[in-house]
């Protein structure tokens, strides 16, 4: 039996925010008070504490000899507990990046507001290819390039809480 248009009779039906506000469709919404108390774990817990102190710490696996970021309690390749903590720099290179005109919920960024410029940043001192996700700023989006050297811009010490956002963003250097 071939699948043909005769067998598929449905058509597309539009749905816009107007339909919602005018009550044209059934909607249910609730704002559940769900607060997740996530434990940071052995490796990320220390990583966050060190960010609060203004430094980035990686972890080495002596078997594959990778200096890993984000730090792991165990090496996913060698399947063993990792070894010593290794301080790495707060500089790195842009491995790849995007210039996003949309926010996390696919909403368009209002005119005049800066586009998001997320990047994978390979941190100096970690093994090649060991990158982290962060944002780039203090440079026009169209001036960013793959391989661009960047440096972390930290929040003032008093404002740091032990989170990835203790680094506000990365800015170009050189």
């Amino acid at each position, binding site marked *: 039996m071939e699948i043909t248009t005769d067998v598929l009779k449905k058509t597309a*039906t539009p749905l816009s925010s107007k339909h919602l506000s005018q009550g044209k469709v059934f*909607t249910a919404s609730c704002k559940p008070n769900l607060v997740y108390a996530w434990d940071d774990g052995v490796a990320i817990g220390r990583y966050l504490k060190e960010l609060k102190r203004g430094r980035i710490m990686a972890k080495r696996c002596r078997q594959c000899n990778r200096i890993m970021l984000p730090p792991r309690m165990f090496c996913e390749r060698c399947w063993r507990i990792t070894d010593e903590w290794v301080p790495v720099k707060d500089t790195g290179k842009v491995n*790849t990046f995007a210039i996003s*005109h949309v926010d*996390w919920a696919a909403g368009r960024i209002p005119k005049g507001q800066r586009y998001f410029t997320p990047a994978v940043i390979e941190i100096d001192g970690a093994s090649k290819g060991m*990158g982290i*996700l962060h944002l780039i700023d203090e440079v026009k989006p169209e001036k960013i390039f793959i391989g661009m050297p960047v440096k972390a811009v930290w929040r003032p010490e008093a404002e740091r809480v032990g989170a990835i956002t203790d680094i506000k963003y990365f800015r170009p250097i050189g």
Partner: protein
Amino acid sequence: MGRRRVAIVGAGMTKFVRRALETPKELAYEASKMALDSCELSLADIDCVTIGTAPDAFDGVHMNGEFLIDGSGAYRKPVMRNYVGGGTGVYAPIHGWFHVASGMFDTCLVVAEEKMSSCQPHPAGAFLTIFDHTTEQPLYPTLIWIFAMEMHRYMHTYGLTKKDIAPVAVKNKKNALDHPAAQIAEEITVEDVLNSEVLAHPVHRLDISPTSDGAVAVVLAAEHVARRITDKPVWIDGVGYALDTAYWCTRDLCYPEYLEVAARQAYEMAGIREPHKEIHIAEPYDPFTYKELHHMEGLMLCGKGEAPRLLADGVTQRDGNLPVCPSGGLLGVGNPIAAAGLMKVAEIFLQLRGEAGKRQVPGRPTTGVAQAWGDLMQVGTVMVMRR
């Protein structure tokens, strides 16, 4: 190894639409009923069911799989739901294959359903919580960011331009004009792609598949049963699946290694040594233009960085030497996540049987591959089929 041979014997699907008025289980029912009707079976002939559906957050319903079982013909039957993001649509029939190849069951109905339109204002918001909650979520990332970054890395590594990649959208949307289930089939040009709205540079509006509602189902049967049901069984000769680490920032995004692992597993099972010669027709996962090319390389249908040349040379056109996404793919038919992957399996099934209508590729292909991909750019699911 004592595995039994398993065939696909029937397929059904709903139209893929921006918004379906049916509920998820109604969509699942329509696709499942059509699949059974296509091979003249009734639900009594079905021993077990596998269901593929992506995040519960789309529907706002926990236990979405459980809600789907009535529509999927799984009422009081052995049923298993699985989910690996966009990779689900090929994972679900692999799970069905396990059930039948193992000898546990003779028939299995595989159902993949997705309804993304319920999630307002945009289902993209549902993906925030797939990112690492400590190191990534506080930066409010979204999937299109990371795909744009992956595309950028791919372009940078092989010196590609947007112009080298845009023809994927032109080809697939055109192929979809012949697909009765298609949502966004149209004739466009490379310039249309380049001039369409920038969503996250280098990804433009026409580089990306739509959000969709839809369902697809296929029927699997063990060899002795399949031969009674149809004289045109399509054999599942190889399956493969692998996941890479969720530390996606610590992999080189220019090449999908997890897919190569999955493909090697499927090819070895199917006895395929030279995939670029032995595979006649391919349905790699194409939610973005560059992903079709990326996945052709991961499936080893060409060398690394070579897929854009095959595209430029017309090799991947429906009448080329290696038709790629003759269905129209996700870019043309639509992308109801799990259902989109199973649509690709259904396309290879129809093509190998010579039942693809206007989409039929020439040359009576005997071997095809369908593939899906998902989660944090880390899942490869692969199925090799022969007639």
